[in-house]
């Protein structure tokens, strides 16, 4: 298999995993981030600690967990408590990293996972699940990563509801709000990898996935996204990474449907 044969989901998963450093304690949710965490742990970050908002600490499941509530996270964890304990460990500054999704993201990495459209919060066109631990992770984890599919509906000028704080209104706003976490360090989408300018806190592009053009990004983004002079291609998944994803981590396609498209 040549490394070019991979799905967009596989590219997103691998790109997400690369943000995880060895030794980190990380809050992970279900979906692609779960697969990415397994992959990171199986490759460059064997000593990362998986934590979940339910109070599950240092889980080492043999097979892919279907959900945060999956029994195999509890039956292989070093410690199982409850939500207050799990989230207060986070609040206490003990979590390095979290991965978050959402229905809308703006240029400052603010996320909406509560209510879209309509007359606003009290009478939205679409009500979603709400924050859960996401606001806590974005506020208190040392840093966090956003992972979403890239569409104009998702990448909006202004989130309809600010569930989860990115850089809020820009430079200094997190500090003014009293947040102790540094904020979002990147965005992984099916089009590329994005970051935030150190000074302006505006979203900029880090790399585009193979076959993606800047025009693709612009077409799928509802705000002006900063393009650097140098815009490399995201390193594709290695053969080893694809092998792990397809035959070891998620062989039954719980999250990653199908092989190469």
């Amino acid at each position, binding site marked *: 298999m040549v490394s070019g044969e991979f799905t967009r989901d596989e590219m997103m998963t691998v790109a997400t995993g690369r943000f995880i450093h060895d030794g980190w304690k990380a809050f992970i949710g279900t979906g692609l981030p779960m697969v990415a965490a397994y992959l990171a742990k199986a490759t460059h970050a064997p000593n990362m600690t998986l934590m979940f908002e339910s109070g599950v600490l240092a889980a080492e499941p043999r097979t892919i967990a279907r959900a945060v509530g999956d029994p195999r996270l509890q039956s292989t964890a070093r410690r199982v408590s409850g939500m207050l304990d799990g989230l207060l460990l986070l609040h206490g500054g003990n979590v390095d990293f979290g991965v978050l999704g959402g229905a809308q993201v703006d240029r400052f990495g603010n996320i909406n996972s509560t209510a879209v459209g309509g007359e606003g919060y009290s*009478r939205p066109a679409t009500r979603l699940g709400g924050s*859960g631990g996401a606001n806590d992770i974005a506020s208190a984890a040392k840093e966090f990563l956003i992972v979403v599919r890239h569409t104009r509906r998702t990448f909006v000028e202004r989130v309809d509801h600010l569930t989860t704080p990115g850089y809020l209104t820009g430079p200094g706003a997190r500090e003014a709000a009293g947040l102790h976490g540094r904020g979002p360090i990147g965005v992984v989408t099916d089009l590329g990898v994005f970051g935030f300018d150190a000074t302006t806190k505006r979203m900029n592009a880090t790399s585009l996935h193979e076959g993606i053009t800047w025009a693709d990004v612009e077409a799928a983004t509802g705000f002006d996204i900063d393009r650097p002079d140098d815009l490399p291609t995201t390193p594709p998944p290695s053969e080893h990474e694809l092998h792990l994803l397809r035959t070891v981590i998620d062989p039954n396609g719980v999250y990653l449907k199908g092989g190469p498209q």
Partner: protein
Amino acid sequence: MSPYSTGTSKIVSMADAAATVPEGASLSFGGFGHFGHPLSFVRELLRQGKGGFTLHAVAECWPAELLTAAGRVNHINLSNLMFEGLGRVRAICRAVENGWITTDDHSHLGLSLRLLAAGWDMPFMPIRTMAGSDLEHIQTGPAPKFRRIASPFSDEQVGVLSPLSPDVAVVHVSESDNQGNGIIRGQISVVDAQVRAAKRVIVTAERIVEPEEIVRNNQLVTVPGILVDQVVHSPYGAYPGGMYGLYDEDMELMDHYYEASRSEEAVAAYLAEWIFGLADHAEYLDRIGSQRLLEAVVDPVHMLARGRGEW
């Protein structure tokens, strides 16, 4: 004779326990994901017809969804309600989108700490999350949830949460003695805060055990009996959800509701068939059938039912 006192037993029937919940009460339920929800209680509560409830709902997606689907809920203080692996809690979402119910959103930690503050009799509880987001800025509850005050030990303006006390908390446990000293195997969600915060506590239990069994595992007792008002014996009380260490969730049955929730008509038919059309929990379990119930039983090492794969 047992050397342990059994006191005045708190054990009552499911019907008697549900009957103590008043119309218009504020309620909080145990459970997380597809596990540990006191669903046999919720079904009985629905059958008894009361409503007008306010929910303090951290993670009890199934109780909140079923009660809302039946039109029994006016307001939800929530942090996250969705079905893991499925999607949105559609009856709740529809009720919000149509303006039938009101909500007030929190982070998981924020709502959990409000319950904890009530349980600890604290006038407020500091929090550093929720700050700067619409969880701080939008407050729609009858009472304020989040305010800023000056820290007397630094020059910070810090967020503090108000306490939140449900009238009744209902939690499902793996085993309990007749005083309500309850053990939950696996993660406890926010049950520790709920039972402390609530004015009344109802425990439903997979097994009622002798005091000796509780004493032998006394470091695992999440629910202190002194906080409990009533205890109900309810095997498979979390079904079709799972109970860690005992049985896995029945995704097919859960999906059955999830599909029905796509329309008001279908959800009404679901409730009529699976709740109002059945006299009690025994009839519900009969309907499921013992073979199906046994298929959900997990092995005691992997804690997974047959066919659920490896660890």
